[in-house]
């Protein structure tokens, strides 16, 4: 007898069993909707029913349930054909590598970013399941209609409980193994490798979202979804202290490093349970730094992860708690310099310390204090949290801690410098360190541009403690005390309601240029102020600006006579709003917020419907992501994921470290077209968004590029004016002249800003050969060189305003309905 199910493998059996779902008077064959229906029939049925009759009649539905990379090839090919990957990194290889090999490296990097996030999400999920059980419900709050969209876009379902999350995460893990295989053993074309890299990027967002959602729904992180829209303008309040100057060092100080918040969460629980809120300082660096204020408003954000060493060198902590990742130096040695103790948490961050997870907190405490151990390793977060608090109090009580280095003592150390200038050579920010050795104010200036990476100290043949010198000089000049700012804690998701307002501001109307999202790890040469200045530039011009990840703390550092940036702008996701989504995993709110923008109005399903959602927002929504700072693998994966969603990414400063870009060629007219969504006619459109992943070097370039990338082929009249003015103003202000292609975005004099209209019309006439009559365009010059009247021009160039159009043949509306 054949085993059960075997019969379905035989030819013919499958065909006979059509899976029909009836929607209204329409019959949909699920076998045509999903590549392989086995195991996902229930999901597919639900989605098709939710879509409703109108939708399934309008287009041929296609669902990427639990998608493999190639399931979304339909969309990836559109992107990769228009923006062919460009590779710029050929490290230590004398010969030029084959393009497909570079693509392979690009996939490897993206996978690294993905598995970092996956591992963290898995750790957290396992812990949550242990504590709350698999059936623990996940509710994003009543203000959120579409919940976990990064997940549903790939899997076809929202994660409504921890069990769903397990299913989604297992799916992502399987995908990762598949991708890794290709990344190390695959022989594929550039496009195939990059398709997979984009897929890894999308999966990274799924992983981030799972971690982020567990934080909000199981660990009481602040979540705007639980609040009514009326509270959004000032919620969460501007009350979180940022910077090393905010720490009261007369109290015991714990500093949490890394990206796992659990020890901090349990430390705070212990603090609260014992009424120690006013007696102890709970601080964080990097990802965990931004997490703490979301469940404890006494939490302080000291700096971004890449500048973590600053905090130890300043001698701030009594206890440091390290969790895996976002930590790239020897914390034990650093802690020892200032007599602080280390609690290393987790299975992946041993730091060479003894694992004491089996012992009681009080035993460990006694042991560490009596024997002056450098620290211990603990794999149980409750224990790590409690121990950190008790240890910090004990150390403070003992009062034996070394004072900070005094400048006078260091003078002697500095005198060993023989001006070999090796330090200057290795400095990533090219600071003239050796020249400043005996000059306190010069050293203090270096502090402003120093990320405390430690390369100079390692390079110094005389062993001068250069970072200590810089730190002491800065402290002498009051720079540590002055490092004190205010920000809002991360708020979590942006609601549909906010998008309804935003739709009027940037989609139907043109009161603001768009939505600018700043993310990143925050290490860069030059001033920390630059990233804040970019935010401020767009806020002043009525954009919605969001920040997430470590850059939020740098944006917080901006202040002028009107106060801190977070005080000057409201926290709602509307025009002139400055939204802080939260740390690292909260970056998953960026695409989710933008998907909501696509859903408000369109009513498409965000479940396993990648192509349609991406196609929709790519051509319509004026949104850009600026990635500012360290080009880590994680950011590489994030950038890939954003690009796949149809969101352009600007990377800087010194964005050329990024190795792979997606640049468009505006001069190649064959690349810029769309299908009329009704007739299916292929039509030439404006070259926009011009790039999908583009490097910039300076703040000014970032602003100008960002403005340029706000153009969309399907933007309506007023938003067209807004984005053109954004570009023109930026180019004129920063570079003294307009771009060489601004005229390609003009379809009517109504799109020219009134105060510039006469000038621009004159330019159209004189420099571009258009025919101008009074304040009106009489005839326009088509890209073919032909001069034509406006009716003809509008017919031959661009999509008629409001006309439904698409880049995907499947999404041309079906003929002959009704």
């Amino acid at each position, binding site marked *: 007898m054949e085993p059960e199910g075997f019969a379905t493998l035989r030819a013919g059996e499958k065909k006979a069993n059509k899976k029909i779902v009836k929607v*209204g008077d329409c019959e949909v064959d699920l076998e045509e909707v999903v590549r392989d229906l086995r195991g996902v029939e229930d999901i597919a049925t639900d989605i098709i029913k939710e879509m*409703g*009759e*109108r*939708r399934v009649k*309008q287009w041929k539905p296609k669902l990427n349930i639990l998608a493999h990379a190639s399931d979304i090839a339909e969309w990836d090919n559109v992107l990769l054909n228009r923006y062919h990957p460009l590779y710029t990194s050929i490290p230590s290889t004398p010969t030029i590598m084959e393009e497909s090999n570079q693509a392979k490296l690009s996939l490897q990097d993206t996978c690294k970013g993905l598995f970092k996030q996956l591992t963290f999400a898995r750790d957290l999920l396992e812990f949550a399941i242990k504590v709350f059980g698999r059936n623990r419900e996940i509710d994003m709050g*009543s*203000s959120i*209609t*579409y919940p976990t969209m990064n997940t549903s876009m790939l899997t076809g379902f929202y994660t409504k409980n921890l069990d769903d999350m397990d299913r989604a995460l297992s799916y992502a893990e399987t995908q990762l193994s598949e991708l890794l295989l290709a990344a190390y053993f695959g022989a594929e074309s550039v496009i195939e490798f990059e398709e997979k890299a984009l897929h890894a990027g999308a999966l990274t967002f799924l992983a981030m979202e799972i971690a982020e959602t567990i934080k909000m729904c199981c660990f009481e992180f602040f979540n705007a979804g639980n609040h*009514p*829209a*009326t509270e959004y303008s000032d919620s969460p309040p501007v009350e979180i202290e940022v910077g090393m100057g905010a720490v009261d060092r007369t109290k015991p100080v714990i500093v949490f490093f890394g990206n796992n918040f659990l020890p901090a969460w349990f430390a705070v629980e212990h603090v609260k349970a014992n009424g120690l809120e006013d007696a102890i300082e709970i601080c964080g660096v990097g990802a965990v730094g931004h997490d703490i204020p979301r469940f404890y408003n006494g939490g302080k954000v000291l700096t971004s992860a890449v500048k973590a060493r600053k905090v130890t060198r300043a001698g701030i902590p009594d206890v440091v708690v390290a969790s895996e990742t976002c930590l790239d130096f020897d914390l034990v040695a650093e802690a020892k310099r200032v007599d602080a103790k280390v609690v290393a948490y987790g299975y992946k961050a041993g730091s060479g310390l003894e694992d004491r997870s089996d012992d009681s907190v009080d035993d460990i405490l006694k042991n560490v204090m009596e024997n002056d151990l450098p620290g211990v390793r603990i794999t149980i977060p409750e224990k790590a949290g409690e121990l950190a608090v008790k240890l910090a109090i004990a150390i403070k009580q003992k009062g034996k801690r070394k004072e900070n280095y005094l400048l006078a003592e260091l003078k002697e150390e500095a005198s060993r410098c023989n001006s070999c200038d090796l330090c200057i050579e290795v400095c990533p920010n090219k600071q003239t360190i050796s020249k400043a050795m005996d000059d306190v104010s010069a050293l203090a200036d270096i502090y402003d541009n120093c990320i405390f990476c430690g390369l100079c100290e390692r390079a110094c043949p005389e062993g001068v403690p250069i970072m200590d010198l810089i730190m002491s000089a800065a402290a002498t000049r009051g720079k540590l005390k002055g490092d004190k700012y205010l920000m809002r804690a991360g708020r979590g998701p942006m609601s*549909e*309601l906010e998008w*309804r307002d935003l739709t*009027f501001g940037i*989609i*139907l*109307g*043109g*009161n603001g240029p768009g939505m600018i999202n700043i993310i990143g790890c925050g290490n860069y040469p030059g001033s920390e102020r630059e990233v804040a200045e970019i935010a401020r530039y767009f806020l*002043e*011009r*009525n954009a919605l600006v969001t920040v997430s990840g470590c850059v939020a703390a740098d944006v917080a550092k901006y202040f002028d006579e009107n106060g801190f940036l977070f005080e000057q702008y409201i926290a709602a996701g509307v025009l002139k709003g400055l939204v802080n989504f939260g740390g690292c995993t909260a970056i998953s709110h960026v695409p989710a917020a933008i998907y909501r923008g696509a*859903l*408000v*109005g*369109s*009513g*498409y399903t965000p479940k396993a419907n990648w192509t349609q959602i991406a196609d929709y927002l790519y051509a*319509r929504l004026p949104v850009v992501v600026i990635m500012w700072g360290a080009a880590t693998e994680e950011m590489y994966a994030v950038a890939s994921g954003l690009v796949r969603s149809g969101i352009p990414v600007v990377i800087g400063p010194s964005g050329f470290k990024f190795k792979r870009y997606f640049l468009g060629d505006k001069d190649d007219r064959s690349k810029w077209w769309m299908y009329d*969504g*009704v007739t299916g006619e292929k039509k030439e459109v404006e070259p926009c968004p011009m790039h999908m992943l583009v490097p910039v070097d300076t703040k000014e370039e970032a602003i100008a590029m960002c403005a340029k990338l706000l153009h969309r082929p*399907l933007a*309506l*009249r007023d938003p067209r004016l807004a984005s053109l*003015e954004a570009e023109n103003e930026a180019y004129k202000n920063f570079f003294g002249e307009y771009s060489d292609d601004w005229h390609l975005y003009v*379809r*009517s004099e*109504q799109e020219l*800003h*009134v*105060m510039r209209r*006469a*000038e621009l019309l*004159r330019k159209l006439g004189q420099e571009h050969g258009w025919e101008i009559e009074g*304040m*009106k365009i009489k005839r326009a010059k088509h890209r073919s060189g032909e001069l034509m009247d*406006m*009716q003809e021009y*509008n017919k031959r160039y661009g999509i*008629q*305003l*409001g*006309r*439904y159009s698409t880049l995907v043949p499947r999404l041309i*509306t079906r003929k002959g*309905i*009704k």
Partner: protein
Amino acid sequence: MTKAKLTEEEEEQEQARDRQEIWDALPKGKVYHVPTNPDDFFTGISYDISPRQAGQRVRKHDMYCELGGPKQRYSSFFFIEVVKGEDKIEDGRVEVIGPEIKEIEGQSLPFGFWIRYYGKELTEDYLDLLTRWTYFALEEGEGWMLLNTRDTIWLRLHKKDADKHDFEHLGQAMINLCKIQFPLVEKADAKILIATEDLGGSKHTKGIIDNVCVPYWERVDKRARAFSDDDADTFYGCTICQTFAPSHVCAVAPDRPPYCGIITWIGAKVMCDLDPYGYIFEMPKGECVDPEGGEYTGINEKIYEKSNRTYKRVVMYSSITYPQTNCGCFEAAIFYIPDVDGLGLVDRRYGGETPLGVTFSKLAGLISGGQQNHGYCGISSRTPRSRKFVRADGGWNRIVWIPKEYKQILTESIPAEMFDKIATEEDCIDPKELKEFLKRVHHPVVTLWKDGETPDPLNLPPPNTDWDQEEEKKARGKGKDILVIPPP
């Protein structure tokens, strides 16, 4: 009929003569001739005018000077008129009567801006848009706070921007913004009166308001109010939202503003002229086949064509039978509540649940996407002010539930006798309780119930399908029955 029209015209001419007399009799000020050549329209203006400056507030301690507003008991005016007769206007003449900005630091004064436009084809129909563009010089002008309009106008100038401003250039900005936007404007002049004590103070401005502005505004408002769907031969279609919803078309009529709330019939008319390749087009009404419900052959034909042959019928004043379609970006929504056979209204500020058991957001998600959802309709928050508001369904007599805050806003539009009969979330949300509430207050909708006890809900067809003819008749019958119910 001819006689009545003549009288109206005569009244208009007489008013125009009076206005000219008062204009000529204003005290002499400093006269400027601002650029009239388009290339130089904004030459010399050193402050920014753009949408990003919109909505700025100037607090008291940031204020350089204040014009009009509550401190002056609103005795100031911003008056714009369309002048007949080319020779009456000297193009580009701006006269500043009274002190300059730099001379009034820290002061609060009454004022008047009197701006006149002429064009061969310019009529008072364009007044709304001329006003809008003139106001933009302040509303979108760097440093200015502008609140209210007409004779309740209130301006403040921010300290930090004061040195960028003077009245000459403000006058230039106001008239040239309008000119650049409307080539129909051929000539423009302005008088800016800053009514210090020696210029008669608020007495002077008040006199102009009473004798010039108010009669003019009353006349144009009356005409605009009287103008209804029946007076227009053409409605306007808008497909701006097809980008979200491929089969959606709005028909914009004087009595039926679109759900987005950003376009009016008159606005659409002007846009259609100004921007012929935009997304607004003419919809000749054709024949009226249903005056009560507002169904027209011409509109149906155009809807069919522009919805890519998806929808054949639209009943303009109904949310139950063949309502207009919508995408998701409406300001408010009407929804049918089967449990009581009545209609609810909700706007997007309301975050709680409705008697349908869903929030506005969920409701909006359900009915968006360019579908014709019988029983549901996205509307502009101002639509309920229309005299033809859901007339086919029974008008206000069919409305049973509105969130409290929105109801407050609509106070003037809701017939007084209905006001207390419409429940809010504070009275009830649950349909069962709503039913009891309606019985208790003798809501007209109760007369539709069997024996005044059991609601007999309509059998709504699924979205995008036609009504069963009998059921449609029943639906319309109910609307008719309830419309004529006299309040008890």
